[in-house]
């Protein structure tokens, strides 16, 4: 319950956008950490990747539905859009940085030893998925930090 003198937001009064970001971050971590731990020690298959993506979609639907039901005021305003823009900008820099690093690693592979053609396709699929996931996490963390710092 707010009154006319309230000033600072307690952690319990997060905006809908912040709650949604925490939900997305939780879904990403719950689904992708086990996946990447598994593929670091075992050869991946296409069914692993497709299964992971389906699991992420299901986790997102469950978490976001719960957050939407629990939040009365679900509006998005100009500050939310500005913070989202900041998140996308940082994610873009992270993605470009990782692509350049990946290109360098690929060049090292071709110079110092041939890649195994049997695993190359799925290996790169996992690497590109990893880049997208890390960029997504950079975007979410940038937004959450911006909300906490009240830009």
């Amino acid at each position, binding site marked *: 319950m707010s009154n006319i003198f309230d000033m600072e*937001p307690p952690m319990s009064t997060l905006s809908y956008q912040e709650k949604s970001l925490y939900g997305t971050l939780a879904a990403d971590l719950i689904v992708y950490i086990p996946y990447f731990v598994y593929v670091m020690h075992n050869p991946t298959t296409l069914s692993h990747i497709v299964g992971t993506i389906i699991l992420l979609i299901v986790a997102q639907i469950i978490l976001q539905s719960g957050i939407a039901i629990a939040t009365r005021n679900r509006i998005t305003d100009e500050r939310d859009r500005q913070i989202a823009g900041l998140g996308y900008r940082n994610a873009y820099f992270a993605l470009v940085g990782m692509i350049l690093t990946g290109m360098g690693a690929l060049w090292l592979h071709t110079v110092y030893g041939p890649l195994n053609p049997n695993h190359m396709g799925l290996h790169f699929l996992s690497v590109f998925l990893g880049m997208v996931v890390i960029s997504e996490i950079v975007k979410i963390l940038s937004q959450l930090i911006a909300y906490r710092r*009240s*830009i």
Partner: protein
Amino acid sequence: MGGIRNNVRDLRAAHEMTQQQLADRIDLTRQTVIAIEGDKYSPSLETAFRIANVFGVPLERVFQYQGERKKPRKG
């Protein structure tokens, strides 16, 4: 945030309005009103005019530009 200060909190208190009520009037979230009152976020020009309209005062009564703070000269 920059050199812009505002009297939103004082004007809101004078109108006996909660942060949520002000937020609802101008289509913002309560968190954004909190950030504006704390001088941590400068709203768009359109939102600034809408806030002034809610309180029925000119824009300069709500927001004031303080200018850039100059560093003191040496010597």
